[in-house]
């Protein structure tokens, strides 16, 4: 175990050293309430967790790439403007394509988030919790949970793509308005848990390996069960 710890620390240091040698920037700290990522300083490297607090704003400019270490986790509680362009999308992906990273978590943001022309790859889970906003031309690629939406008033998906995720889109207690969003070539497409509502063209949810659309309430009723995933997990984390 000690060796494993040494190995992790060594890998982290090695990644940092290689990154610095390759001109990669560490993820920046807020300055005057703004965390700004610019193309000229890209690519950035994030090894561990980072929280953008409720009083701060994240601004990511077109052409920025952030390379994530395996423990990287981005929690966004403040204003979020990840705005790439069609020709210069913003990319968040793992530094080592064989390792996943934790994901992007938009949590209890006061102002609507804005995420445009963005690619998020290889994350374990990307979540929106108690926040509203728009994902426009966002590609969720090869994540375990592409996007997990929980307890939200409204999230808009415009021209988004979900590809090669294990669970592409999961919605609980919230409404997702979808426009021209394709959910294809994932293992599971759309999963609707209690209170989950998807408004949009469901014919674009197709060609997923195991299923296109699943509804937890139907699955429970079909098997004579009453306890949902959320209830089991709540019990476990409560103890």
């Amino acid at each position: 175990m000690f060796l494993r710890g040494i190995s992790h620390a060594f890998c982290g240091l090695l990644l940092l050293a290689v990154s610095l040698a390759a001109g990669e920037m560490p993820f920046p700290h807020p300055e005057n309430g703004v965390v700004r990522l610019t193309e000229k300083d890209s690519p950035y490297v994030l090894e561990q967790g980072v929280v953008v607090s409720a009083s701060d704003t994240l601004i990511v400019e077109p052409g920025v790439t952030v390379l994530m270490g395996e423990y990287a986790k981005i929690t966004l509680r403040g204003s979020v403007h990840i705005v790439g362009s069609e020709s210069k999308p913003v990319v968040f992906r793992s530094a080592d394509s064989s390792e996943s990273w934790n994901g992007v978590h938009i949590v209890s943001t006061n102002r609507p988030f804005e995420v445009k022309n963005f690619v998020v790859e290889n994350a374990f889970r990307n979540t929106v919790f108690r926040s509203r906003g728009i994902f426009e031309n966002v590609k969720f690629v090869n994540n375990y949970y592409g996007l997990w939406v929980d307890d939200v008033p409204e999230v808009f998906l415009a021209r988004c793509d979900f590809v090669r995720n294990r669970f592409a889109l999961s919605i609980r207690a919230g409404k997702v308005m979808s426009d021209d969003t394709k959910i294809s070539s994932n293992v599971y497409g759309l999963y609707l848990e209690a209170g989950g509502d998807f408004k949009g063209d469901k014919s674009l949810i197709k060609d997923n390996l195991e299923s296109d659309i699943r509804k937890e309430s139907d699955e429970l009723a079909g098997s004579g069960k009453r306890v949902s995933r959320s209830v089991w997990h709540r019990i476990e984390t409560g103890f």
Partner: protein
Amino acid sequence: MNLLKFCASSAALLFLCSCDSNDVSLAFNTENAPVQKYFLESSLDAMLPSDSGVTVPEAMETHLKVQATLSELVAYDNGSGRFEMKIDSVEYKSDKRTVEDYLYIQKYLLTQHFQYKMAPDGSVSEPAVEDVALQPGTEELNLLKLFMKVQPILPGNPVKVGETWERPVEIPENGKTTTVYKSFTLQEVYMHDGAQMAKIGMNVKYKEVVDSTANVQMESKGFIVGEGSILFDMTHGVISSVSLDLTGHVNVNDLVAGSVIPDMHILQKIKLRSEF
């Protein structure tokens, strides 16, 4: 120097232990505690019986095994110390999660190093996960909470075998604080491998109160009760082992689904062993 400190501390502990032929004083070593390996295991079973034959019985079984290293960072003038628990390895399984979920949870728990201040009687203050960016969310397991459930509180004054003392312990979590009432009885004092050991019985009870910010709310029916025992190494002022079995019933209200799962039976077994 460390050896001198250790000898002085051991002598002080032995002196306290022998202040009366029938009385023993129990105290954690917060001056120069040795680095300890902690082995924590927790299994949780939740069971829901069938509902008049309409639905099937349901159950969840989870198991968590953690190895950690406890080190004292600072000894304060007031007798308390600041400790750090570094998580070395995690094994986790749940029959309600996927293998990838296990792996994610294992990886995430490996980052949950935490610190706390501890007084010589074992009471813990300022518990906190080291990396604020990795604080457990409502859907995540919380090692600090498990540890605080089994942490013994010592009497603070000399006690005789058979004597009982009670202490409430506040365990902070997301959106709420749970008060766990702990009662201890000194059962036996004996020598083992050159160390004086105290066997202490432990009973706990607490109410699982609703977290009003959550949309899946859990509330216990009456108290969750637990029984266990502690082996405390009086010579070195450290825990040798703790076991605690908890049982109770909870109602879970999924506000979003508009459904109430009543009377879920819960069994939790927590074991902690320490080596140095």
